[in-house]
């Protein structure tokens, strides 16, 4: 789905919120839906982008980040949620802040059936692991949703995830 011409530039809105919340470490396994946000963070000298080999590394990284007095965010696609499950015991047991921004696959118009199981399980899996989830379906919802999750994560502290709906990002195709 193409965003409406008047629709907010939601990747820029997320970047603005990350800056407002003084996020200094942006850990990620890339997703096409996060490409623009990653480019914005990469060009921002106040942020360090940490590319991971698997998403659970980011959960551990951000525990150290906060122990050391900085804030971070973890970007992933929904399939990465499954890679985090045991490591999510770390923020839960130690009551650490965790802000996850997950782009959803396996829902709206998904063409790849291999994305569907984890896409459908991402939210319940996060909730079972003690992560509060907030969905954003439309461009205008993204900034207030990220702001609300960041407040809850950093002022709690708590583990929170923003699920960026596939309908928002646009269903991926391979040009077919």
């Amino acid at each position, binding site marked *: 789905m193409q965003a409406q011409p008047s629709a907010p530039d939601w990747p820029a809105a997320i970047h603005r919120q990350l800056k407002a919340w003084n996020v*200094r*470490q942006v850990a990620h396994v890339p997703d096409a839906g996060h490409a623009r946000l990653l480019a914005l963070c990469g060009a921002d000298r106040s942020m*360090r982008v*940490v*590319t*991971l*080999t*698997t998403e*659970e*590394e*980011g*959960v*551990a*990284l*951000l*525990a*150290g*980040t*906060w*122990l*050391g*007095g*900085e804030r*971070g965010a973890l970007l992933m696609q929904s399939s990465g949620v499954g890679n985090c499950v*045991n*490591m999510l*015991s*770390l923020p839960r*047991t*130690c*009551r*650490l802040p965790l802000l996850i921004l997950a782009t959803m696959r396996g829902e709206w118009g998904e063409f790849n059936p291999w994305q569907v199981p984890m896409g459908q399980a991402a939210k319940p899996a996060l909730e079972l692991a003690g992560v509060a989830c907030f969905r954003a379906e439309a461009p205008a919802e993204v900034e207030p949703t990220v702001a609300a999750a960041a407040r809850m994560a950093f002022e709690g502290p708590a583990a929170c995830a923003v699920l960026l709906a596939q309908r928002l990002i646009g269903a991926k195709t391979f040009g077919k």
Partner: protein
Amino acid sequence: MSPKRADRYPLRRRAVVAALLKGRGDLLVVAGLGAAAWDCTAAGDRDLTFPLWGAMGGAAMIGLGLALAQPERRVLVVTGDGEMLMGLGSLATLAAQAPANLAVVVLDNERYGETGAQLTHTAGAADLAAIARGAGIRRCATVRDAAGFKRLNAGLFGKPGPSFAVVKVRAENLPLVLPPKDGTELRTRFRKALGL
């Protein structure tokens, strides 16, 4: 190559960790779950040690986050071979970030010590220092004796960072010396000691 060779390794883990942490100054320590955490506690339970009771495979990454957030402090990750084997990908992530204030020391007894001393892959052909080198960490070493360890301990930190060391230690059952178990207590005391 005997799978039981670690029963005869000369270096002893408690003495190794005591030497690593002696006169630790401003050092920040992350201790991987199991025996590595007990060893660090045996050397003295300190606010600026963050011992893990879980999060297996995450110790090196916690150290990385800490090292990036505290660039003026030295950060030492002390962990075991089983814990490190679960987070091998993190070695590539460490190499890519390359903080000079981070060192990872693996106490390699070639065993899963907390679960019945089952052999890890380092009892066979797996070479953690070679894996770390292949992941892009430039300062890697394996030490097996007192002289090698002494040299290692004198030069753990510096450029190009991070450094990664495997210390081959004797497989042995030692008395448990347990750190506090409450994660909120551990993280609160750590941050407080950092002035946060």
